[in-house]
């Protein structure tokens, strides 16, 4: 979100940013026609990665796989709606599910949780089929509030590795330090939007346990939620030189009948591969003007929250309520 600082400069900033990471950012803000082919996501990636030869990545001086550099996001519609769906509107095209397990690609909610999710969906105010009744909640992301694991759907992240830690820095103004030195998570009663992350290497896969989540974020913009009891387990693995196989397993027996997993690739920008639906293998097509710009590889400020006040007022005036998480019934 570009702060309203005057059209010419805002447009310049937006243009450079969009061109720098065109495949991911532009796609997340993209528009699709009703008959666009289904955007590939988890099922297509599962098939594609099964065909890949084993990959032995370069290593850092500490001897672990070197994942450093800039990485794009999942592409597609930026997780408008987590599960497989047909065309809903111009920004929510026909789209494969982000969920690789269970095989049906649906969130395995308990009955109580599914009813709660449907209630939220009915009040999203998106003009989607099935909406009825009062407004429920706007997506936390629409208020510039980020959470795990949704932020990994976004691109614009740089990974830096140092002894005992893997650092992820985002152009959208957040950072994660994933300690791999064996220290315990924050623990106790502390609950965070991004949780508390602790990683360890399992062969060439970085396994990150994320606990201490506050349950206030969504997986998408369609009201798919978790709770303050939820644990995320991420797996980061280089599938080839320019691709990370990213998955996150979600565990929470208070609202799901079983653990479930999201899975998609993250690609290095400018490597000629895009995740945009219907166009696998297309080049990223960065214009040469940007390549010659000395600032082309830079990340510039995007002050989402500062520029979002009008939008926040509107959301409240439209009757949306604050999403403070869900409280499942105790058994």
């Amino acid at each position, binding site marked *: 979100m570009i702060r309203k600082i005057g059209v010419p400069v805002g447009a310049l900033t937006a243009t450079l940013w969009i061109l720098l990471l065109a495949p991911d950012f532009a796609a997340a803000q993209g528009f699709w026609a009703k008959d666009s082919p289904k955007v590939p996501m988890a099922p297509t990636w599962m098939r594609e990665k099964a065909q890949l030869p084993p990959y032995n990545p370069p290593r850092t001086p500490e001897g672990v796989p070197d994942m450093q550099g800039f990485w794009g996001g999942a592409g597609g519609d930026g997780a408008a709606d987590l599960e497989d769906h047909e065309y809903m509107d111009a920004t929510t095209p026909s789209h494969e599910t982000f969920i690789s397990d269970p095989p049906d690609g649906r969130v395995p909610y308990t009955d109580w949780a599914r009813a709660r999710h449907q209630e939220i969906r009915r009040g999203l105010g998106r003009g989607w089929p099935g909406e009825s009744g009062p407004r429920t909640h706007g997506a936390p992301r629409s*208020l510039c509030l980020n959470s795990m694991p949704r932020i990994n759907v976004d691109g614009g992240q740089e990974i830096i590795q140092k002894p005992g830690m893997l650092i992820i820095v985002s152009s959208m103004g957040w950072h994660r*330090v994933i300690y791999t030195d064996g220290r315990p998570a924050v623990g106790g009663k502390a609950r965070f939007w991004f949780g508390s992350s602790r990683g360890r290497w399992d062969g060439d896969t970085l396994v990150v346990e994320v606990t201490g989540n506050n349950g206030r974020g969504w997986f998408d913009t369609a009201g798919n939620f978790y709770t303050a009891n939820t644990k995320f387990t991420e797996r980061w693995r280089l599938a080839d030189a320019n691709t990370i196989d990213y998955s996150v397993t979600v565990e929470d027996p208070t609202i799901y009948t079983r653990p479930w997993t999201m899975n998609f690739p993250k690609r290095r920008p400018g490597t000629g591969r895009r995740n945009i639906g219907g166009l696998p293998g297309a080049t990223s097509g960065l214009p040469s003007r940007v390549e010659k710009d000395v600032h082309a590889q830079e990340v510039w400020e995007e002050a989402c929250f500062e520029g979002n006040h009008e939008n926040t007022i509107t959301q409240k005036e439209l009757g949306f309520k*604050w999403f403070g998480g869900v409280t499942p019934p105790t058994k």
Partner: protein
Amino acid sequence: MKRSLLGFILILAAVAALTPIPLVGQSSYTPPRTREGQPDLEGIWQAVNTAHWDVEGHNGSLGVPPGHSVVEGGLIPYQPWALQKRRENFEKRAELDPETKCWLPGVPRATYMPHPFQIVQTNDKVMFMYEYRSWVRYVWMNGTPHPEGPIDWFMGDSRGKWDGNTLVIDVIHLNDQTWFDRAGNFHSEAMHVVERFTRTGPDHMLYEATIEDPKVFTRPWKISMPLYRRVEQTAELLEYACPAYLLEKEWNDPNSNYFRQR
């Protein structure tokens, strides 16, 4: 008697000459180097002072601890109209301080917020990761110039270089939507900040910032303060998601003014 006194004085002088006395902005301490061969400023650091309340010397008040000035010379050299504005800012600070809106704190305030920050160095940039707002400031170290304006960012545009073991950062393109502290000390969008970060020991760093803003001040002025390494085993940046806390409070408050301010 005289000879031994003279001898004593000479010995004292010799010892003093051999004992390094750090000059302002320099240090006799030689920090280790990063893998890329740069002075190593990495780690988790925090200011321990009352600058975030008021960069000038001030007495205590309810909830506000007293503190010495971090401004060299004591007081900020405001132009007369600006001194009046600072007074108004102070009186209405509960409503005017951008920190109460959870906005980004700008430079140099981000350095001395009551939260740690982490410095991470790569071959072409230095990153300041702040616990406050989980924000990241990039300092570009590859000799590139500031982009052309007009640009106004909360955290400005930072270009850095090494002066011996000191990291020198030049910051422009700051907007006028940040304060220096909670006491109404302010600047315009013309502000130019030059920061210096100098390791002075294994767990200490000297932070200096020179402020230039001909629209508001009569001359450049400077702040300086030590920064302390967070040495506990559990030291890490946690999360201070100010906007989330603020939105939750205001959304659920029937008497909130927040949504009427456009």
